[in-house]
C-alpha cells in the first residue's frame, strides 16, 4: 500500500517537470510568437522598450536559467501581473476560483445522480426500450459540442420559455453575482458542464454492473436466496461502483478544464471565463497563469484519485503495480 503510494508520487515528479517545461516553452519559445510582445499585449514595441523589457524580465538569459527562475516563482505562487488590470494573477485566481469550484461541484452532483441512475437502470433492464434510450442519449451527449448545448439551453429555458410564459417562468442565462448566487443560476451551466461526463459515467456504470452481474459470487448470493435488492446493493453496486467513483474523481479535474467553454457561454465569472477574456484582451500572463493553476489542480486531483483507488480496491493494494 505504502509502496504503491510512494511509487505513484515518484511517478508524479517527472510529470511535474515535464508539464512545467512545456508550459514554460509555450510561454517563451513558441515559434512565431514574441515573448517581449507578450509582456506588453498589443502595444507597439520600440527597440529601446524591447531592451528595457528584456532587462526587466531577464529575457536575454539562457533558457535553463529562465526555466529555473520560472520554477522558483511558481513555488512561491508568483504567476506574474496582468497587463490589462495591473493586478497580480494569483489574486485574480483567488477571487475567481470559488465560482469555478462551485459550478464543478454542482456538475459533479448532477453527474453522480443522473449518471449512476441511468447506468444502473440501463444495466438492469438490458435490451429493453429504456436501455436503448440511455445508450442513444449517451452517444448523443458525448458527441455534443458543449458550448452549443449551453446556447440551446439558454435559448430554450431562458428566452423561449420566458416569451411563452410572459416572463413568469424562466431560468437565468448568464452570470452570477456574489460568491454564492442562488440555485437557479447553477441549473443551466451545471447541466451544460455535466452533460458529457454524465454520459460517460452512465456508460461505465452500465458496463461495470453488467460485468459484476455475471460473477460467480452473484450466482452464489442468488443461490442462497438473497432478494434482488439485497444482491444489488450489498454485492453488485459495491463492486461496480469502484471504477465509477474513480472516473468521477478524474472527471472533477476534467471539469475544471472544461469550465472554459461553459463559463464563456454563460458569462460565469470563474477562472474559465477569466481565461477567455484574457485571450480576447491578449493578456497572456493571465492566460498562462490560469492555465497553469488548472493544470496543477487537475494533476493533483488525478494523483489523489489514484491513491484513493488503492484504498477502495484491494486488488491494487495487494497486487502492487498497475500493469
Amino acid at each position: 500500500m505504502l509502496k504503491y503510494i510512494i511509487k505513484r508520487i515518484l511517478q508524479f515528479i517527472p510529470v511535474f517537470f515535464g508539464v512545467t517545461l512545456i508550459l514554460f516553452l509555450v510561454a517563451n519559445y513558441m515559434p512565431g510568437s514574441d515573448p517581449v510582445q507578450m509582456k506588453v499585449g498589443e502595444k507597439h514595441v520600440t527597440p529601446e522598450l524591447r531592451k528595457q523589457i528584456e532587462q526587466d524580465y531577464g529575457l536575454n538569459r539562457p533558457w535553463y536559467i529562465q526555466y529555473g527562475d520560472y520554477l522558483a516563482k511558481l513555488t512561491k505562487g508568483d504567476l506574474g501581473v496582468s497587463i490589462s488590470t495591473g493586478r497580480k494573477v494569483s489574486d485574480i485566481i483567488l477571487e475567481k476560483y470559488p465560482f469555478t469550484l462551485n459550478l464543478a461541484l454542482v456538475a459533479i452532483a448532477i453527474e453522480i445522480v443522473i449518471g449512476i441512475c441511468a447506468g444502473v437502470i440501463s444495466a438492469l433492464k438490458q435490451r429493453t426500450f429504456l436501455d436503448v434510450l440511455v445508450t442513444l442519449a449517451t452517444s448523443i451527449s458525448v458527441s455534443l459540442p458543449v458550448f452549443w448545448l449551453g446556447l440551446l439551453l439558454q435559448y430554450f429555458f431562458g428566452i423561449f420559455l420566458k416569451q411563452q410564459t410572459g416572463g413568469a417562468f424562466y431560468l437565468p442565462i448568464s452570470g452570477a453575482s456574489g460568491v454564492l448566487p442562488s440555485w437557479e443560476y447553477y441549473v443551466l451551466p451545471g447541466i451544460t458542464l455535466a452533460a458529457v461526463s454524465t454520459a460517460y459515467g452512465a456508460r461505465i456504470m452500465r458496463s461495470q454492473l453488467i460485468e459484476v452481474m455475471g460473477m460467480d459470487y452473484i450466482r452464489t448470493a442468488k443461490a442462497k436466496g438473497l432478494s434482488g435488492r439485497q444482491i444489488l446493493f450489498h454485492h453488485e453496486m459495491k463492486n461496480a461502483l469502484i471504477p465509477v467513483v474513480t472516473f468521477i474523481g478524474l472527471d472533477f479535474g476534467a471539469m475544471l478544464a472544461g469550465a472554459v467553454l461553459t463559463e464563456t457561454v454563460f458569462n460565469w465569472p470563474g477562472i474559465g471565463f477569466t481565461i477567455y477574456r484574457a485571450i480576447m484582451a491578449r493578456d497572456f500572463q493571465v492566460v498562462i497563469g490560469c492555465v497553469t493553476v488548472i493544470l496543477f489542480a487537475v494533476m493533483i486531483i488525478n494523483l489523489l484519485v489514484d491513491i484513493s483507488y488503492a484504498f477502495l480496491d484491494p486488488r491494487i493494494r495487494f497486487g502492487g503495480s498497475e500493469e
Partner: protein
Amino acid sequence: MDNKKHNKSNMDESEIKHEYRAQNEQSNISRSIVKKNGASVNRIAQGGSDSPRELLDASIDRKTRTLWGDAFRRLSKNKLAMISLIWIIIVAVAAITAKLWVPRLFGDPTIINTQLAITQRFSSPSFAHWFGTDDMGRDIFGRVIYGARVSLTVGIFATLISLVIGVFLGAISGFYGKAIDAVIMRVTDIFLAFPYILFAILVMSVLPSQYKGVTVVVAVIGLLGWSTFARLFRSSVLSVKENDYVAAGRALGASNARLMFKHILPNAIAPAVVYATMGVGGAILTESALSFLGIGIQPPTVSWGRMIDDGRMNLTDHPAIVLFPGLAILLTVLAFTLLGDGVRDALDVKMEE
C-alpha cells in the same frame, strides 16, 4: 504440445502457414485449421490421420477470410454504423465538391457583400436559402457546407498525426522495452496528465493570429493528442509479441523490422484503428471549441465553431444561425462515434465466440 485454443482471428494467412511449417519442421505434430461458423478451430491431429499436404491445402482454402475481411463483413451488417458511414461520405463529398456548386447556388460563403448584408439579412429558411441567412446576409446552408471542409480536414489529419506518432512511439516502446520504454512512457505520462483541450487553448492563444490557419490547428491538435494512441498501441504490441507466430518468425530469422511490420503491426493495430475512428470526432469537437473561442480558424475561412460564436449575439431573435452549424457538428461527430462503436464491435475477437 500446444493444446490451447488459439486466437486465430488475430493471425492472417501467412502467419498461419508460417507457424504451420515451423511447427511441422520442429515436431511431428500436424495441425489443421478448420473454419467453422466463422470461427476457426484448431485441431491437433496426431501424425498419420491426415497427410501434412492435405492439411496445408485446407489452410490455403480459407484464403478468402482474413481478419479485416471478416471485420468488414460484420461492420456492413451493423445498421447504425452503416448509416454513419453513409452520412460521413455524404458530408465528405459535399465538402470536397463545395467550391464547384456552393458559390453558384448560394453565393460565396467566405465574402461579405455589403449590399446583401442589408437586403437579405436574417431571412428565414426558404427555397432559395434552405437554412436562412445570417446577420451578413450570407446563406447559412452554404456556410455549413464550407464549414465541413475545415472540420473534416482537421478531424482526419489531426487524428492521422496523432495515430502515426502514437503508433510509432508505442511500437518502439512495446517492442524494445527496458530503458527506451521507460523514457517514452514517462513522456507519454506527461501528455496524459493534462486535458489536451486546455493546452490547445494555451498554445493557440499565444500564437499570433496570422498563424492561425487550418494547418496550424491540425498540427496543434495532432501533436497534443498522440499520448492515448501510444499507450494503447504499446499494450497491444506487448500482448501480440507473446504470440507463437512472432516467436516462429524470430526463429526463422526474420529481422526486427520484418517482425514489426509483417507480424506485430497488422495484429496489434485494431484498438488504435477503433480509437482513431472515434478520435476524428474528438478532433472535430476540439477544433470547433477553439474556433468558438476565437483562437482557432480565423475568418474568412468558414468553420462551424466560429459560426456558432458569430450567431451568439443574435441568439434571442435568430436562433437558426446557432442551430444549424451545431447540428452539423453533432451529427458528424456522432457519425464518427457510432462508426467507431461499430468498428470496435466488428474487430473485437471476443464478440465472435
